């Protein structure tokens, strides 16, 4: 190709595009939004609004880390919204029930790990497709939660319970959770043996087995970790406000899955990074804030959101195709 020289000179940049193409697209979209909306209304870039945007969706970003693991390993979980509802209710119930605060913080995370380990085992050892198991779990968790609580709000938690409202250097705790967990998991996925095994199993389970991995164990591990992140997400979700609704947050599973896939996690397994899913969760927060700032009629809000998702996906596909064409 005529541009070969140019490509050669920009090889570092093109390698970055190759490795983190989708993340860059999402980052570009965030930047574009910040610039455009910031020009129209400078308050969009005000300190308060930036903090709201980054912390408000942090629980979705954390849940999307776990979801990304599951999707990269070649599975899916449509029950995560119900699970977060259940775990948040457990946290709140323990907090008002005279248990020490650390119990109210750790038990939901453990329960999340236990439930999802069980789910992972069903998928791995009984060979049931993950969407079937998690569809079933969605019903079981949701129905169980409603029978148990009838939607009674949980109020009157002790003030030190509200970890998501804590601030350090003026930045809310959820932002730290989101950033630290994302970076830690990104490194882990890249360098740890199990992290790499998740990619291998998601990419091609049979080849992974042939090279000495146990796809079943990797699947269970991915789900167990997903349960851990769902537990953390539930804590952030439960401690953000003074009341816990003790219901299933509507459509949360779709939001989490969308964040993962928009962030570049391939639904076919094997590729993607958790950095992308976190960026996508931030992008969603920016979009919904931007729509209010730009006076987009709330009637059209969801249509605009749908268009944006579609545009991101198509842009990614175009990029991949160009990339493939470039390589040929």
């Amino acid at each position, binding site marked *: 190709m005529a541009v070969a020289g140019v490509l050669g000179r920009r090889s570092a940049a093109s390698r970055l595009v190759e490795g983190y193409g989708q993340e860059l697209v999402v980052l570009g979209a965030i930047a574009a939004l910040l610039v*455009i909306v910031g020009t129209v209304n400078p308050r969009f870039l005000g300190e308060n*609004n930036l903090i709201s945007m980054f912390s408000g969706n942090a629980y979705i970003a954390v849940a999307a880390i776990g979801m990304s693991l599951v999707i990269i390993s070649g599975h899916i979980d449509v029950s995560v919204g119900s699970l977060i509802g259940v775990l948040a209710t457990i946290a709140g119930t323990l907090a008002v029930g005279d248990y020490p605060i650390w119990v109210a913080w750790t038990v939901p995370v453990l329960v999340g790990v236990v439930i999802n380990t069980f789910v992972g085992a069903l998928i791995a050892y009984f060979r049931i497709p993950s969407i079937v198991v998690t569809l079933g779990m969605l019903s079981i968790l949701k129905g169980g939660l409603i029978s148990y609580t009838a*939607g009674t709000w949980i109020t009157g938690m002790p003030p030190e319970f509200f970890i998501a409202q804590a601030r350090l250097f003026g930045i809310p705790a959820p932002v730290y959770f989101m950033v630290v967990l994302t970076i830690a998991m990104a490194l882990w996925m890249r360098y740890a043996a199990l992290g790499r095994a998740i990619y291998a199993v998601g990419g091609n389970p049979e080849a992974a087995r042939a090279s000495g991995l146990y796809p079943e164990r990797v699947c269970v591990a991915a789900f167990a970790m997903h349960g851990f992140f769902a537990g953390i997400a539930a804590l952030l979700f439960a401690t953000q406000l003074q009341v816990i*609704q003790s219901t299933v947050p509507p459509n949360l599973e779709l939001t989490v899955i969308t964040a993962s896939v928009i962030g570049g996690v391939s639904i076919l397994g094997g590729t993607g990074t958790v950095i992308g899913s976190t960026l996508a969760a931030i992008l969603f927060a920016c979009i*919904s804030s931007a729509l*209010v700032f*730009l*006076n987009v009629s709330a009637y*059209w809000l969801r249509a605009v959101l749908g268009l944006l998702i579609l545009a991101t996906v198509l842009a990614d596909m175009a990029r991949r195709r160009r990339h493939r064409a470039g390589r040929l």
Partner: protein
Amino acid sequence: MIRTSLIAAVALSVMAGTAWAQTWTGGDDLPTSPLACDATPATAAAKPYDGAEPANVPDRKGKEITVVDVPKLIGIGYFNATSKGIADAAKELGNVSVKTDGPTKANIDEQITFIDNYITSGVDGILFAANDPVAIAPVLKKALSKGINVVGYDANSTPDARQWFVNQAEFNGIAKALVDNMAKEIGEDGAFAIVTSTFTTPNQARWIAEMAAYAEKCHPNMKWLETVEAQEDNVLSFNQASTLINKYGDELKGLFGMTSVATPASAEAVTQAGKCGEIAVVGLATPNAMKPYVEKDCVTSVVLWNPVDLGYAAMHVMRAVADGALKPGATSVTAGKLGELQVINGSEILLGAPFTFTKENIGGFDF
């Protein structure tokens, strides 16, 4: 190219959106009837009974009856409170066995299926809170045709699909209470925004329409900034309210919460933004969720009827209808400890005027 197309998409949709934004208030198209600006009560024209009558009703006077209560959805605080009221009244009456059951999301289709199944199972009475006044009508008419007594509460159906409707408070009365309280707190020229559930929720849309009409009539200088949707989700409500606060800065003086979820979440957003006392929150909410904010003086007035009383009244009306004590043309009905309730608009029973909770009285309520 990718970025250009993205930006183009954003710009296009934004333009399309802003074009529509101008015409929009969040209300419905039905005619409004704002109350007088002072405390003059509305003089309702007497209207003949416009409810329906069930066919071939067996004599249920004084007999044990089975009643099912199908709210808009189960698993939320508000309908948990109404079902408690219904159960309380049933226990007090002693000759009613009642069960609350319904969909887990406010979905017209599932609600219809639930009612249909209970018609088949052979109940004597159905209490309902409709997700949509028209969509629920066919199945309620089916119930009437099978001799089942049908009474609504909280959210009405078309009058010809039920016998009576227990109205918690008239739409224009709620609108007046909300707007007057807001005007008192932020002044006659303050600017406010609204956080509601969805624009398709009939009650909320009606209140917003009545609020617009009343504000225009009695507080013409107040500035209506915008209305945002937040489902019945408290984190979303919190995020939306925070965005409004960030967007309008000092211009925003007041927030209306149109649901018992949106109001505490808006109060929380104001608290966490450190704007207590600068931004007033007025809205519909249950006292328990609002106590922390009222006690911290972040919120001074909360408007709501008592949902436990609403359920309680609905059960008593059901019993009175089954006994034949409440007949078309009646002007009042006795509802246990609530005493005499007035009949309005032909076939509605009014629970009373909306109640305003303040720091002084909120401690006395627990729901």
